């Protein structure tokens, strides 16, 4: 069965996303949010425009106002947004949020139409360590005396937290802090009493928050999945999110690579284009090969999740390890090959370089996923 070729509809979607990213979300948009110290680090108005184009609800079912499409379609849009480093809530809201809310009861699913309309933004709050450790959770959930739950704890590195209306929060009902068992997932309104959100200023200028939960009361209807088995849902959210992030990293790598190639053709030293020097040419060819390999494994991971293939998790980890390495390589080489202007803030190259470092650590670094790839069985 084919797994790499796109249908005409998917191809059209990707083209539309590319056009939108170029016109409405160029790198200058991210720069503007950074320079104006925008508190949300994204534009809700542009997100509404994207929602009108059907992208906020790509993977939301049609009954809740979405398009009912797959992760591949989300990945195609992510890839194009990656080219311009576009800061949009697509990953947090449409990849993670939509999947999380769909796992809830009727009260939670009622948020989906607003999500698909671009009116409700979601963020996943699960991390507590200095680096990716998905099950480590000291945030507690206790049954409240009058019914419902009470949450206490603190979450770090909440992507798109500053703009979120709704938080998907992981807490512990039982077990040790690093146990996979004993987790529970909630959908919590950002405005709930006891939720204290502190926006952080990150090196890549994207919106990230630290969030404190102090005796936050949550009704039972806002539990997602089964209490104690929250890791099953969390795993699903993380594997979809990781594959989608890989697509964004692929797009960003491809863009920074092509910007570098253009520079190698245009910049003259010693009377010739510097791209004629073998020392640079061979490195460019090497990057080209790495990009081609990355394209294959990222596409394979997205499709494997949509088809629920048995090797999906292996492919997700292979894709993240590869996409991280390729983005780090292409952005780092871009800085070096641009020479002096490569380290100036005037040029966009530095923004790609910073983003690559953040993306690597997000949802598990290259090293983390190489190790996971080995533990899952390498398929050989």
């Amino acid at each position, binding site marked *: 069965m084919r797994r790499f070729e796109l249908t005409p509809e998917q191809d059209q979607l990707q083209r539309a996303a590319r056009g939108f990213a170029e016109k409405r979300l160029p790198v200058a948009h991210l720069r503007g949010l950074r320079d104006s110290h925008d508190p949300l680090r994204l534009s809700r108005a542009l997100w509404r425009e994207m929602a009108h184009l059907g992208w906020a609800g790509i993977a939301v079912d049609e009954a809740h106002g979405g398009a009912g499409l797959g992760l591949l379609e989300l990945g195609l849009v992510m890839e194009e947004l990656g080219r311009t480093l576009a800061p949009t809530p697509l990953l947090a809201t449409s990849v993670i949020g939509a999947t999380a809310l769909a796992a809830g009861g009727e009260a939670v699913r009622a948020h989906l139409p607003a999500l698909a309309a671009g009116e409700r933004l979601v963020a996943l709050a699960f991390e507590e360590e200095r680096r990716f450790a998905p099950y480590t959770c000291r945030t507690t959930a206790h049954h409240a005396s009058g019914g419902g739950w009470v949450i206490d704890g603190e979450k770090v590195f909440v992507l798109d937290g500053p703009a979120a209306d709704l938080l998907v929060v992981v807490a512990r009902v039982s077990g040790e802090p690093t146990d996979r068992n004993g987790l529970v997932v909630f959908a919590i309104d950002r405005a709930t009493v006891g939720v204290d959100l502190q926006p952080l200023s990150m090196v890549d200028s994207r919106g990230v928050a630290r969030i404190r939960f102090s005796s936050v009361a949550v009704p039972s209807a806002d539990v997602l999945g089964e209490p104690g088995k929250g890791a099953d849902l969390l795993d699903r959210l993380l594997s979809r999110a990781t594959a989608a992030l890989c697509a964004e990293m692929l797009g960003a790598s491809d863009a920074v690579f092509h910007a570098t190639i253009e520079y*190698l053709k245009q910049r003259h030293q010693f009377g010739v284009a510097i791209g004629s020097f073998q020392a640079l*040419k061979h490195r460019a060819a090497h990057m*080209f090969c790495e990009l081609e390999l990355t394209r*294959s494994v990222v596409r394979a991971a997205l499709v494997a999740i949509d088809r629920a293939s048995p090797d999906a998790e292996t492919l997700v980890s292979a894709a993240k*390890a590869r996409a991280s390495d390729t983005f780090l390589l292409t952005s780092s080489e871009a800085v070096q090959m641009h020479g002096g202007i490569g380290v100036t803030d005037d040029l966009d190259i530095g923004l790609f370089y910073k983003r690559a470092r953040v993306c690597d650590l997000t949802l598990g670094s290259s090293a983390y996923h190489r190790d996971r790839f080995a533990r899952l*069985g*390498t398929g*050989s």
Partner: protein
Amino acid sequence: MSRSASDEEFRAEVRAWLQANCPASMRTPFLPGDEVWGGRRRTFPSDDARIWFERAVERGFTVPSWPKEYGGAGLSREQARILDHEMRAMGCRSPLISFGIWMLAPVLMEYATDEQKAEHLPAIARGEIRWCQGYSEPGSGSDLASLATRAVLHGDHYVVDGAKVWTSHADQSDWMFCLVRTDAEGPKHDGISFLLIDMTTPGITTRPIPLISGSSPFCETRFDGVRVPARNLVGREGGGWQIAKKLLEHERSIISVMRDRAPEEAESLPAMLKRCGDASLRDRVIQAELDFLCNRLTLERTAEAAKAGRGPGAASSMFKLYGTELNKRRKELRVELAGYQGLGWEAPGFEPGELQITREWLRSRANSIEGGTSEIQLHIIAKRVPGLPD
């Protein structure tokens, strides 16, 4: 993709034919030295190999998609795909390994006269003539176009003088497709011609070159006043470089595909790793496994794109580069993982599988040199894909 009823009929028919005609021992992976190469002096490692070869030839299945007049089975693209799929599923070996089929025939189909096709293609299909490649010379390696083997026209014959090296299996081959210089005056690329030479012609001597791996797949071949009929010229005089480049693209894809289909090692890298706890070695094994997976997926993606009529410009160079560099890394890792038992040269004291680890490691070093070095591939990729200036 629509699967017509006749295709399904063909699948059933071909499956039954393979069941009836491919001997059980030919449904196992190749062991070293087990391949059937054909040719006038053809040998077979077993009766089953001979039977399988003869039946495949009779049915046209050595070259399934070739027209029947050239010894093929005249299969449609879809039928050929079905046959390939069924053979893989059953684990059938290739009945014939042939440079004639993989390298020469595609360019003959494109550039040869009808007379030349009729003379050579059926003999290739039937495994009657074994071909070798005369490209590199002692003074022309990566700079292939500087080749100096002269061919001077005297009446209806060319007289060839010079030497070729790295002529794979020249000592076992019946004919050579050869690049010769027919014009020493103009630009070097324009003076090259593509000539077919019968290896029994007087004046040809061949000497095998022993390699570090202990085997001698390559030879040095000398030409002293060798008379070659002018009708053995393919394409026009001076048009050989274009043909040579086409053929090299086929060669590169073959080298990468052969790596993909190479006889699988007895033990996988992760399995070998279980006996060795070195953490840094583990990292390198994981990276090699990861790269292997990504390379395989890229081959699959490229094949899908080719079917849809799109091919990335430098695909064959990319796979040649990546496949051979990766193969070298994997073979080196096997030696490291095998420890002292991966350092044996001959029995006793070493199992055949262990000796294979040593020999394959050394053999793999030639992969990134033959068919254009890795550095040449990088050059081609940079030129064709990102379009960097010369």
